[in-house]
């Protein structure tokens, strides 16, 4: 197939996907408006327009930066620590069956335990303030990173490592040019799942013990029974998570994994 025809087909495909995505939003918002207008009182399920106005107010007042800043700080610190620990544990478990025996039950335990439990334990240990949410984020997202890295390390193509050894390349170039590029998709998946867990736990912890942050604001709006305010924060949170996924994670993945895409279109 010619390059021009492939381009036209890809462009058409992209437009069709966007059309379906917009249709999804339109149907969802229409249903929401319908429920708000005909089925329940507006203060229980406020119409989309009211939520949008509230979101605009939150942005204009500058509150959004204060509380997103607080939550992002919690996530950045917690997830960075979890990622470093999880990647190290995953490397050890993937390369040594002794380390796997040592760590695997603990990783499995943290993976299967509901995040709420860690949020509550952290709240009891650290009390009010930012330390509890950070600790809860570390414990819960650690295992998601570790599990993905273990799988990647176990699947590293040893024939490539042998090739490098046969040509006299030492451990440092093997890690840089074979392990890291091969593990890139696993590391991205770890970021994706670990980060989504980190968001949830950070917000949950802030609902319980936060003194600032998105979760803290949700708790405040819940106590005021302001469904409009509550949903406005929820949607701001959703918009930000979507931005991170679509713009930061997916673009990063495309960039790092472009060799796969190029090879697939030959």
């Amino acid at each position, binding site marked *: 197939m010619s390059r021009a025809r492939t381009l036209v087909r890809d462009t058409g495909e992209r437009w069709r996907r966007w059309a379906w995505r917009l249709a999804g939003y339109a149907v969802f918002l229409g249903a929401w408006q319908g429920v708000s207008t005909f089925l329940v009182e507006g203060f229980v399920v406020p119409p989309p327009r009211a939520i949008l106005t509230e979101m605009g107010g939150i942005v204009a007042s500058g509150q959004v930066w204060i509380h997103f800043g607080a939550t992002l700080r919690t996530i950045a610190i917690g997830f960075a620590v979890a990622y470093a620990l999880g990647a190290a544990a995953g490397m050890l478990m993937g390369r040594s069956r002794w380390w796997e025996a040592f760590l695997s039950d603990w990783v499995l335990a943290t993976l299967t335990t509901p995040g709420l439990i860690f949020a509550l334990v952290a709240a009891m240990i650290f009390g009010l303030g930012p330390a509890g949410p950070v600790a809860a984020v570390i414990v819960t997202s650690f295992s998601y990173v570790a599990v993905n890295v273990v799988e990647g390390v176990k699947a590293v193509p040893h024939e490539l490592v042998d090739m490098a050894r*046969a040509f006299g390349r030492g451990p440092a170039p093997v890690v840089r040019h074979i392990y890291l590029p091969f593990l890139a998709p696993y590391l991205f998946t770890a970021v994706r799942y670990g980060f989504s867990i980190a968001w949830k736990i950070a917000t949950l912890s802030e609902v319980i013990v936060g003194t600032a942050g998105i979760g803290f604001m949700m708790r405040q709006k819940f106590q005021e029974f302001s469904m409009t305010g509550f949903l406005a924060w929820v949607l701001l949170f959703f918009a930000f998570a979507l931005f991170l996924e679509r713009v930061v994670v997916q673009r990063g993945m495309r960039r790092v994994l472009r060799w796969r895409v190029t090879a697939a279109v030959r």
Partner: protein
Amino acid sequence: MAGVRVRELRKEFPGGDPPVVAIEDISFTVDGQEFVSVVGPSGCGKSTLLNILSGIDTATRGQVDITQNGRPARLGYVFQSARLLPWRSVLDNLLFVQPARGPADRERCRRYLDMVRLGHTAGQYPGQLSGGMQQRVGIARAFSIEPDLLLMDEPFSHLDAITARSLRRELHDLWQETRKTVLFVTHDVSEAVELSTRILMLAPGGRLVADLPVRLPFPRDPAADEVALARADLLRRFESLDLLAG
């Protein structure tokens, strides 16, 4: 040119009782500029032998001495599959192994890509090439470090007959041009007769059962009578040893 001296080399794999013997106390030498094929049926320790020579694997006992004018020789390796890094371009795959030769030299790498007629693919990823083209990149990679000794492990066994034949010709031309010392592992008797100056016959259990010079002029046409006779003679030797039965 590099010389290879192998003395009483033995490789056992633990786990069985007694342990599985992959190579049984073999000794041989390869002199500079020779093209030596190691021929034998599957599982007779051919690849294990190359892995030990290249340092990928270790011997249970015995001595391996590969030197070039008194210093350790530089080794190039062509594997059964191309073993290219799929996330690096063709040229970058050659550059990856250059520290074995010295500072990375893009021009030298391009020259060897041109020699296998793949200069135009330098910027492409391996996944964009056919299996035969990938194997040619593997050959160019091994030659690009200008090795003293070239180890080749059934490099054409995964390719279709037509591509394999064309690559054999290319390899022969490259060898004629560079006169590298080559140790070539194959289970294909015809291939060994077509390419080699000497053939080492390996039997199951890793026993070296014959060391035969091939005194036929190059280039060798696989369909020519003298090549067919040499091939038949070699096959008869294998049959007399009852090596092909299993």
